[in-house]
């Protein structure tokens, strides 16, 4: 296995840092590549939706609070007592996406804009 070729802390630090940056930059290009070859993406994405007013946002916050479905998907590792700011933020994000009617639709949009069938689920029983 590799042995450190130097004992200079600064050089070790720089080498490691460089490798990390190279790997993550490369990964970032891979993500863009995935996006490019994505056969399921919509050909033309609509540009920024109009801002929603504050009142409407308040109403949305209320809606989101009533439906747990959205939040358990959007915030990793958050399963209870979602702070208000989180909800507010999600609603803001949603609102700016132009989806003002049905908040639960967020998940639907994410999931269903694919060509894959996603409603037929197997189970262990059938996967014996």
């Amino acid at each position, binding site marked *: 296995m*590799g042995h450190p070729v130097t004992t200079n802390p600064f050089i070790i630090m720089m080498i*490691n840092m460089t490798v990390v940056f190279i790997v*993550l930059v490369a990964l970032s290009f891979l993500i863009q590549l995935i996006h490019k070859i*994505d056969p399921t*993406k919509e050909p033309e994405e609509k540009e920024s939706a109009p801002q929603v007013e504050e009142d409407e946002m308040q109403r949305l916050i209320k809606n989101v609070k009533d439906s747990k479905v959205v939040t358990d998907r959007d915030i*990793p590792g958050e399963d209870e007592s979602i702070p208000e700011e989180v909800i507010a*933020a*999600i609603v803001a994000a949603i609102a700016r996406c132009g989806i003002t009617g049905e908040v639960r639709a967020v998940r639907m949009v994410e999931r269903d804009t694919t060509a894959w069938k*996603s409603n037929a689920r197997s*189970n262990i029983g059938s996967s014996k």
Partner: protein
Amino acid sequence: MEFIDAFSVSLQSVWNDSGFSSFTVGNGIMILVGLILLYMAFVKEFEPLLLGPIAFGCILANFPNTDFFGEEMNVMKAINFGITYEIFPPLIFLGIGAMTDFGPLLARPWTLLLGAAAQIGVFVALAGAMIVGFDVKEAAAIGIIGGADGPTSIYLSIKLAPHLLGAIAVAAYTYMSLVPMIQPPIMKLLTSQKEREVVMTELRTVTKFERVVFPIVATIFISLLLPPITALLGMLMLGNLFRESGVTDRLSDTAQNSLCNIVTIFLATGTGMTMNAKDFLVPETLLIICLGLIAFMGGTAGGVLLGKVMCRATGWKINPLIGSAGVSAVPMAARVSQLVGMKAKPGNYLLMHAMGPNVAGVIGTAVAAGTMLAMLK
């Protein structure tokens, strides 16, 4: 007086075999350390799910004559086996993968750079540790505290410096809890009011194709480049596949809940049980705690500074505050970005934007750990 004789001899024998008779000052101090950690876990609520069992394990490990680490197998030794051979951290990462939404990262792939910049703290602490006299392996294990990823820290400590495991785990989890106190001053110091007020545009929709392909591609690329981290990173991505495939909800649920909780109990208790007086009550422990803080502060600064660069480079479209989320500590660091942003400009919701660097930090720390393993092991 057979009875009286037998009685006093027996009582004497029980006392001699008891822990009181061979109790050392070191044991006493370590039990006190355990009690302080319990206080931090349960009253101050510093990562109670981890620090709680770690603290209790620390107390258990410091009772003399329990024979937990004798030759014969027992439940504590079995748990220790799962620590020593790095079996538990990858299983926790399986659960974390199933909990993680890489969507915000996929929508803005360049946030990976913020996740890389936040690893600066790791390497600053590594250099610092070498300067104050740790050898390079110990220094790497100490540095990774700045990665703010418990299982990665534990994994690397076991591989490179098992005698420091207790101190490193405690420092990592403690500072992760303290993120809301450590980060804001640094963030405010390094950013101008104008920068903090930057409003970011919405994230684009991420398709299921991207969500499913990303963990596969990332596993292949990183594992080929840095094989020593495959066990950890592969499990993270397998868990994420369980989540995103849409047809393995049963496995995703189990990975996140029963399996993750069971392994958490064992990993944390077992980590606590490595905290014996001999390894923990040394001046190095204090150094590790100081270096851990430097690592966290360095990571925060690194993320914010690269955020500033990006802010200018993109024509004020990036709020530098999301850079600090790159230390990971999911989702707390992202919430800190949100809070500082809201204070600068009410209604400036940064949370979802900060989730990108936040999960990027998990990958960044795994890559940093893999790099150090590749170079040092």
